[in-house]
């Protein structure tokens, strides 16, 4: 008798499972921000596991999508405003602000958000926007580097990346040793880890579009970071999100900006090639 009940339960579970999958497909919608249409679906680059890369925006609830589409309602724009203030604020012993050298960010940072991480010949490593800011602060401004996820670091990164809103992500993997970091990042992406024995690909590739608890699994794209999240009511940086995902697999979290996570940033950013920069995106 017990066996029959269990079998019946399993059948119900299987049915509800398939119903969930159907409801979990990404939406068919357009994202227009300030009259600019974002590229939220793009043909995947060669060697990509998917045929089409998709923005995480397509996987979110209608209200969340609407908040990102309205640049006034988007609370991430508060970080952009804060970042603009920092851009123009003099700091450090050299008496300079970002604007002293780079002038108008709308011009000088126009493509930065779509092309980082880049190869940094000085450190012989890839460099992202956060570390480039620190490099500038130390070398040119005579200021202290930011602590990881300091509100100023997140706001300034958001402001800089926002200047590329709408531009398609494109990395230069031919410069320096970017390719070998890409390969390392790819290894990390597919490496199962933690007590749950998950790799990035377990959720964002094999189970993309399905639900994990109440969370609708997207392709895990990096194009909207730093992102405003409703669950924390604040901005979340890419390395914070990486660490959060890794924590959820119950693995030890690598440090932010460690070689491991920098390699992952190179690879994951590449997986979103062709998607518009959406910073600051809005997610749940």
């Amino acid at each position, binding site marked *: 008798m017990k066996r029959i009940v269990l079998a019946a339960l399993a059948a119900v579970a299987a049915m509800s499972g398939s119903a969930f999958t159907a409801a979990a497909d990404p939406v068919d919608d357009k994202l227009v921000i300030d009259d600019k249409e974002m590229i939220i679906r793009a043909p995947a680059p060669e060697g990509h596991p998917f045929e089409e890369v998709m923005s995480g925006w397509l996987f979110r609830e209608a209200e969340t999508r609407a908040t990102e589409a309205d640049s006034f*309602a988007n*609370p991430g724009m*508060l970080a952009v*405003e*804060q970042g603009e203030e920092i851009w123009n604020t003099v700091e450090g012993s050299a008496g300079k602000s970002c604007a002293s050298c780079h002038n108008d960010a709308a011009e000088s940072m126009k493509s930065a958000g779509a092309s980082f991480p880049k190869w940094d010949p000085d450190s012989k490593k890839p460099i992202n926007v956060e570390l480039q800011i620190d490099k500038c602060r130390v070398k040119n401004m005579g200021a202290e580097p930011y602590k990881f996820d300091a509100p100023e670091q997140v706001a300034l990164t958001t402001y800089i990346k926002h200047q590329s809103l709408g531009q398609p992500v494109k990395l230069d993997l031919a410069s320096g040793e970017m390719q070998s970091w890409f390969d390392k990042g790819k290894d990390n992406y597919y490496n199962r880890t933690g007590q749950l024995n998950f790799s990035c690909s377990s959720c964002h590739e094999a189970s993309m579009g399905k639900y994990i608890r109440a969370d609708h699994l997207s392709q895990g794209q990096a194009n909207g970071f730093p992102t405003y999240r*409703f669950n924390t*009511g604040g901005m979340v940086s890419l390395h914070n999100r990486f660490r959060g995902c890794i924590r959820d697999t119950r693995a030890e979290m690598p440090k932010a900006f460690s070689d491991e996570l920098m390699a992952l940033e190179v690879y994951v950013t590449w997986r979103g090639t062709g998607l518009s920069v959406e910073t600051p995106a809005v997610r749940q």
Partner: protein
Amino acid sequence: MATSKPRVKVPKTASAGETVVIKTLISHEMESGQRKDKDGNVIPRKIINRFTCEFNGQPVFSCDIDPAISANPYFEFSAKVPESGTFKFTWVDDDGSTYTDEQKIEVK
């Protein structure tokens, strides 16, 4: 975010008697008073507890806000504009500070 900064969106012009949409957003952590810090001490409540909008001194919209409202509260409402004038927006913080903003609208 250390200081609360309001953002308000009101159309610059309207026709007499037109209903316009007003959007407001203010940066605020909206600390609920329910959370504890690392040492187990309650983090004191600090929220915006009231929001009002006036047009030429006449009340347009007001509400009391409770701790369940999330960070960076956003309000959107509509108002009829009978004449040219000024919308005044006020947010009241638990600590007694008020944040204000004014926007002029011209009736053509």
